[in-house]
């Protein structure tokens, strides 16, 4: 099967770099599946898992937003932070989730609500990915 090169890059350095058969990601406008030879494309990503299928197994990466750039032979995911399922610190993610939940219950008129919501979404995303691996 033809493969496509995927690299996940964050400001703190590359997170993932490999040849895979298919990339599935959740864009803001819906799920995307990308295989080799895809037409060049750019799409913003949701806070969700990116699934990379290769040789019968699937790697999961937690992506905190960012966007995806596709070229016929290479897919680049640019996110402000990304973690591979193996490296997610489950305890830290749990405590981040609790923190965000507590903040959401606090004063509802503060501008931090939106930030707390995003933080909660990130934490939930990381926990679910860490548990499915």
């Amino acid at each position: 099967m033809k493969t496509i090169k995927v690299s996940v890059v964050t400001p703190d350095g590359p997170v993932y770099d490999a040849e895979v058969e298919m990339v599935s990601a959740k864009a803001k406008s819906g799920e995307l599946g990308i295989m080799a030879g895809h037409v060049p494309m750019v799409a913003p990503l949701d806070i969700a898992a990116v699934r990379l299928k290769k040789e019968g197994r699937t790697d999961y990466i937690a992506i905190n937003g960012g966007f995806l750039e596709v070229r016929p032979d290479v897919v680049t995911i640019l996110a402000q932070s990304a973690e591979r399922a193996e490296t997610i610190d489950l305890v830290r993610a749990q405590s981040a989730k609790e923190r965000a939940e507590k903040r959401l219950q606090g004063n509802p008129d503060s501008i931090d609500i939106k930030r707390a919501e995003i933080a909660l979404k990130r934490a939930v995303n990381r926990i679910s990915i860490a548990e499915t691996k």
Partner: protein
Amino acid sequence: MASLRDIKSRINSTKKTSQITKAMQMVSASKWNRAESNAKRYAPYMEKIQEVVTSIASGSTDASHPMLKTRPVKKTGYVVITADKGLAGAYNSSVLRHVFKTIQQRHKSADEYVIIAIGRVGRDFFVSRKMHVELEVIGVPDQPSFSDISDIAKSTVNLFQNELCDELYMYYNHYVSAISQEVTEKKILPLTDIELSGSLTSYEYEPDAEAILEVLLPQYAESLIYGALLDGKASEHSARMTAMKSATDNAKEIIDSLSLQYNRARQAAITQEITEIVGGAAALE
């Protein structure tokens, strides 16, 4: 002439100082190494994001975004990156001097600008001059990760988006080499000077170019700030390393000249003693 004991104690204290500066030099050297590799790891991200921004912003002329448009300037934001502590030669003072001069030249009243200070030295400088510091971050780690400054980067970009300021400049020490850093002024927003370089790919946009710019441009502006911070950190450590190296060298010079003085004084004391003994013996005869 200073007594033997005075000289000895000066030699000792200079020696101790030089041990400290030597240690600081070595600490900075290793931090500088790491800072340089951090900056290198960041480079691919910046290149890639720049490539996509350029191809979208220049490819589709119909796509517009407030961040790409110049608007009449009522208020200017200045992001100033300094260190949290001194002992780094001219690292902090050259940036601060430059910013201070620029602000005085460009603005007549304090309502025309806001300052975003990254680093304690810069914050204290502006606060002591009664200049309004809108946002500040102190205690940025020596090897910052993006999450350490994502909050201030976001708030800074929000200042522009909420029209609290109409343009944003950034001042930092650009790392040229281990012995040279230069003060750099960079315009962050609006993004007017996107360079056209390399081959441009024409993309399909999902859902459309504007929705992508909505995500992409803030991310781009934030990463510009992060990039400058990494650059500044590399400069900071190399400036501190150089400053500490010259302090150590100077201490060594002082120790050398003091030892010479000490030996002379000792010799003089011995000579005097011999003269006294000889004189005493001669008087007995």
